[in-house]
């Protein structure tokens, strides 16, 4: 039991190495001799890994939103996902965030295959390992910024006092310490976005997924948000940013270009 908790804590800090207790996913290609090293040092477990993922929305006609997508994100990585509208970016994010299931292929979070996971196990992964920031914020209008952020820990079962303390620290971290008791209606768009980011971050997730975090903001405010995301990445959180904004994409060390449900290019600019 203790081992498991230690492991969880180690992974949660975004350490480059998976803990000793972390089971390596059994590789289906194990039979063939693989040059890939088995040592964790050289191949840290990806925070999220998609292999051959298909997702087709049923309907008339069915829409193949993802076709054979392979993507691995290492701990602490920052990447932009760009591409034309309808190319499958949001679908990719939902599947990477366990909100949606792939029709084919495998998705792993921290090396764990999601196809074996029950609804409760997926919920637990979302509660402890993944933070979402949606374009529409989805803040509770009647609750203060602090309480909105504290809600990010609601399903961890931690006591309310602890949640609010963590929320207060996280609001400081996103530069909103002085707005803790304002309601969303009393905040600017950029401030609301930062509250939403703080809510995603308050549980210290290994993976932050953001869908157009700057979409509704002017460029200066958008830049501040990007700076915040870059800071998080430096702090060890893996961040995936969907964006239409070329400037935002240019600020990211890795860029994934999607078209028609496929990854057209995946380039690391530096680091």
């Amino acid at each position, binding site marked *: 039991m203790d081992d498991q908790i230690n*492991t969880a804590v180690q*992974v949660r800090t975004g350490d480059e190495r998976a803990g000793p207790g972390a089971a390596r996913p059994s590789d289906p290609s194990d039979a063939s001799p693989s040059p890939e090293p088995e040592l964790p040092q050289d191949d840290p477990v990806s925070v999220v890994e998609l292999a051959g993922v298909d997702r087709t929305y049923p309907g008339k006609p069915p829409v193949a939103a993802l076709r054979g997508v392979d993507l691995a994100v290492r701990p602490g990585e920052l990447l932009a996902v760009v591409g034309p509208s309808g190319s499958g970016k949001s679908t990719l994010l939902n599947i990477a965030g366990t909100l949606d299931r792939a029709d084919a292929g495998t998705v792993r979070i921290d090396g764990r295959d999601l196809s074996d996971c029950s609804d409760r196990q997926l919920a637990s992964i979302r509660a402890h390992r993944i933070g979402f920031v949606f374009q529409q914020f989805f803040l509770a209008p009647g609750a203060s910024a602090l309480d909105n952020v504290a809600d990010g820990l609601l399903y961890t079962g931690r006591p309310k006092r602890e949640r609010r303390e963590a929320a207060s620290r996280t609001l400081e971290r996103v530069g909103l310490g002085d707005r803790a008791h304002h309601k969303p209606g009393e905040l600017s768009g950029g401030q609301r976005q930062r509250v939403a980011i703080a809510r995603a971050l308050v549980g210290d997730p290994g993976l932050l997924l953001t869908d157009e975090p700057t979409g509704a903001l002017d460029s200066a405010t958008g830049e501040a948000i990007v700076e915040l995301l870059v800071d998080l990445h430096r702090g060890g959180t893996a961040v995936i940013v969907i964006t239409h904004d070329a400037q935002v994409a240019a600020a990211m060390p890795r860029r994934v270009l999607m078209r028609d449900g496929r990854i057209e290019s995946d380039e690391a600019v530096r680091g």
Partner: protein
Amino acid sequence: MTLEPSRLRGADLVGLAVAGMRARPLRAVLSALGIAVGIAAMVVVVGISASSRAEVEAQLELLGTNLLTVSPGQTITGEEASLPPESVDMVARIGPVESVGAIGEVDANVYRSEAIDPNLSNGITVYATTVDLLGTVGGEVAEGRFLDEALAAFPTTVLGSTTAERLGITVADGSVAVRIGDEDFTVVGVLEPVPLVPELDAGALVGWPVAEAELGFDGAPTTIFERSPDATVAAVREVLPATANPEAPQETVVSRPSDALAAKAATDRTLTTLLLSLGGVALLVGGIGVANTMVIAVLERRSEIGLRRSLGATRGHIRGQFLAESMLLAGLGGVGGAAIGGAATAGFALWQGWPVSIPLWALALSAAATIAVGAVAGVYPASKAARYSPTVALSAY
């Protein structure tokens, strides 16, 4: 790697339900209203019948339950029997009997004055009465006095409360007379209502001797009243028929007037059942209102549901949240209804001069009923909320 499961504390679940309800206070109040009406109706029905029962019990406490009556029944051939004139004295001779009174129905009409057509019946019965009657039945004089040995031989009468009202008589100082049979009888007293012997209220009481002398009364009592200590009532009851009518004990009817009074309190049970079912229908309609509100809430709050799922809520947590909100909504109605019903019961009981009595089981039952209604009303919306896939909920339009 094993993660801790998602967990929602009980206190947080309640907090979510409260917050959900407070987000739309007017809607919450309106949808709780149906439940409140149902519960209020039930509490009022139960409370009022309990209060009236408490009143009867208090009355019985005061009037005593040791009064027995003997009346003539029927002969074997089906004719009306009668008690022998000496039966009153015989009953008085039973050991434990403390007091005895008797009335004998007299075939005579009562009128306010001579000028009224004697064929008009006014429902007033004339009773020859022993002077101990009033003390035995626990009656009270409202005006004037009761008959005594001296007055009993003269044309004087004491009127029951209803009789006095019907004849419009309010004074009993000897200045007013009524026509009984062919003679004027001076009104010397008016009685308060007699709860144990309500037939006296519509009676005109005259002395035993004067009834025999002037009104053709045969001296046969139609009801003998007697009281004995509580512990001896059963034993006295055993011997009463043979004592009152030794020749034909089976032609007597013994009864206990307090039983009739207690039965009167119990007879509204059918009415209570009817009103309780009406309350149940109101509760059902209220439950449908709550379910409707919750269905709308679930539709409106799809993005909240999606967000909560993204924050780590399981389907069970979502279901629990909406179920709790539904139960809280119904519970609000229940508490409101119990308060309204309690206040209405108290108001009505005080107005009637009754003791206020709201049985605990009624409150416990309302609490259970509202919780059950809230739970049932919430099942469908809550499971609908839990079934949303997170992505569908988040992209809600």
